């Protein structure tokens, strides 16, 4: 029993000593061991480590990639003297904890300020060389690469590696946006007008084409019809000529009579006659003439 309580005491004492003389480093952290304010070692690997109790002091720093996202987009001027609002973010990581600690006192905010200054300088320089169009579409990734290289070179001095610098948004300021909208409106209006005129033109073309076709169809038919009629007339003429030329004088007489018959056939035709005419010769008297 005495042994057991002794053991308990020993265990508790051991635990106290252990907590004071060891520390664990997480996979997500760097640790710096200070002995009375002086850096004695940097622990990059996770695990449990010993330290001198009370004398040693351990500080932990983030090992994962962090994001610096400026709260406000910054204004930059492009080569054609236009303002753009640029919103970017920086992915960074501490690679040299002691350097980092010495340079920015281990303060993330201070580190971010430093990074944002570097990146903004880069942005200003790169944007100043390019037009909006180049910034927005053509050389966007080049700019980002250049910025990253530049920022990385600079930040190595403070124990930081820049993983990436990316342009999140490149927008036009409000007043420029308005003029863009106006231009877009005008463009669409032009497109709409063109479409409508095109529609009218197409429609007219189709109609005119149809009318032309119609006229051709009808006139061709007319021409054919006239030809056929002409053939008919010619044939009829020939028949008449052949027959009537057998006795011209009689034809004259016969045809005239027929014409008279046709001309005077109704009660509405009034004839004023002289009784001396041939027709009435027997009406005047029975004598032979």
């Amino acid at each position, binding site marked *: 029993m005495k042994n057991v309580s002794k053991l308990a005491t*020993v265990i508790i004492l051991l635990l106290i000593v252990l907590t004071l003389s060891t520390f*664990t*480093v*997480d996979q*997500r952290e760097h640790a710096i061991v200070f002995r009375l304010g002086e850096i004695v070692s940097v622990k990059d*690997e*996770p*695990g*449990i*480590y010993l330290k001198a109790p009370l004398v040693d002091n351990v500080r932990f720093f*983030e090992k*994962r*990639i*962090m*994001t610096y*996202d400026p709260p406000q987009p910054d204004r930059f001027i492009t080569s054609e003297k236009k303002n753009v609002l640029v919103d970017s973010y920086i992915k960074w990581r501490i690679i040299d904890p002691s350097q980092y600690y010495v340079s920015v006192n281990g303060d993330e905010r201070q580190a971010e300020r430093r990074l944002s200054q570097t990146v903004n300088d880069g942005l200003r320089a790169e944007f100043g060389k390019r037009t909006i*169009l180049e910034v*927005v579409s*053509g050389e*966007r990734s080049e700019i980002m690469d250049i910025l990253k290289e530049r920022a990385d070179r600079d930040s190595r001095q403070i124990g930081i590696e820049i993983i990436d610098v*990316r342009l*999140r948004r490149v927008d036009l300021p409000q007043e420029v*946006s308005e003029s863009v909208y106006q231009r*877009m409106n005008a463009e669409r209006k032009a497109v*709409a007008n063109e479409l*409508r005129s095109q*529609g009218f033109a*197409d*429609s007219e*073309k*189709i109609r005119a*084409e*149809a009318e032309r*076709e*119609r006229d051709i*169809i009808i006139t*061709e038919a007319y021409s*054919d019809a006239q030809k*056929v*009629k002409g053939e*008919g007339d010619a044939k009829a003429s020939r028949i*008449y000529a052949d*027959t009537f030329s*057998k006795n011209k004088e009689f*034809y004259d*007489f*016969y045809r005239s*009579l027929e014409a008279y*018959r046709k001309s005077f056939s*109704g*009660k*509405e*035709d*009034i*004839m*004023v*006659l002289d009784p001396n*005419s*041939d*027709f009435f010769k027997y009406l005047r008297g029975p004598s032979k003439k």
Partner: protein
Amino acid sequence: METMRNILKKLSLRNILAANNDGPPDLDELFVDIKKKIDNVFNIKSGKSGGNGNLNNGKQPVNSNFDGIPTGTILLVVFLIWMATGFYIVDQGSRGLVLQFGKNTEITQPGPRWHIPYPVETVEIVNQEQVRTTEVGYRSSRSGGTSQELRESLMLTGDENIIDLQFAVQYNLKSVQDYLFNNRSVENSVRGAAETAIREVVGKSKMDFVLYEGREEIAIKTKSLMQDILDRYKSGINITSVTMQNAQPPEQVQAAFDDAVKAKQDLERQKNEGQAYANDIIPKARGTASRLIAEANGYKAAIENEAKGNASRFDQILTEYTRAPEVTRNRLFLETQEQIMSSVSKVIVDQKGSNSLLYLPLDKLINQKSSSGNQEDQTQASNQRTNSGSSASDVINSITERSRGAFNARERDAR
């Protein structure tokens, strides 16, 4: 007690491993020491109970209780409780990451699990398969509606236009280790990558392409660019889809765009109307053409037949005429006269004796004879004859001539 032994084994094994890694020999010795001490405790107990030299016998704590050593029991209970804090459950679709002294040593699958309790080991449970969503350009509210985020959704296109684009990114994890250990605030990284990727893609495209035919392509390109970016950060994220929720011109120019779309429809409509007109008149024209041809053929046949008929009639009469010319001639003349005289109205005037002027009210006569007659003809007919004619042929000639076509066919032609 079987597990107990395993635990101890595991513990000692791991400690040795850890010690080897970082090599502080003190630590190793320390643990060996602890182990020895623990062994001693059990040995003492077993010695008292009945000389059982076995390291871990389940019945021994009970025995020590009988011996009236409550401190040992308390220690054991504390130890057991400490051990029990190592139990954890990994849900389906999740993974447990066991960290021994801050270093990831094991990934556990779903199910009930145990790790060496704090401070030696800790566990982080991460849901790997759950599909997470990031919305860009809009936010869904809990009530089901959405609100637009203009700052995110408006972007510049390659032809310097502004469009309004809203999309959602869905992702899960392809590596829980990468997810947990490489990035702080991974969700923000996804949003950042989404915004920068879409703007890069849209910035290289023309507005019409983004708005209409290119939506799918934009989504695909954005997805692969995002994946590239996130892989560069070793974030362990797997983008499963990028879906365009909305791609439209900004509000300020919406009306003009709608009008342009309408204009396109107008164009189609006008074309269709033109075509409809064409489809109407051309068949009609063909109809008219057929009629013209048919009529011409009819005319031809008719006029030929008429000619043949007339000719044959004349031919026959001519035959008779040559046989007896005088008689036939007279007969024909008289028959004609008879026919005419019997049908027309006649006024016979003998003017030989009197030279006085004769009043002949022809208009009245005509009105009498034909009340339903032709009005125009009446005025023409009201010619007065004052002079005396002489021969019969004159009489006929003096009648006001009315134009009547010699051939019926000619009339038809005029039509």
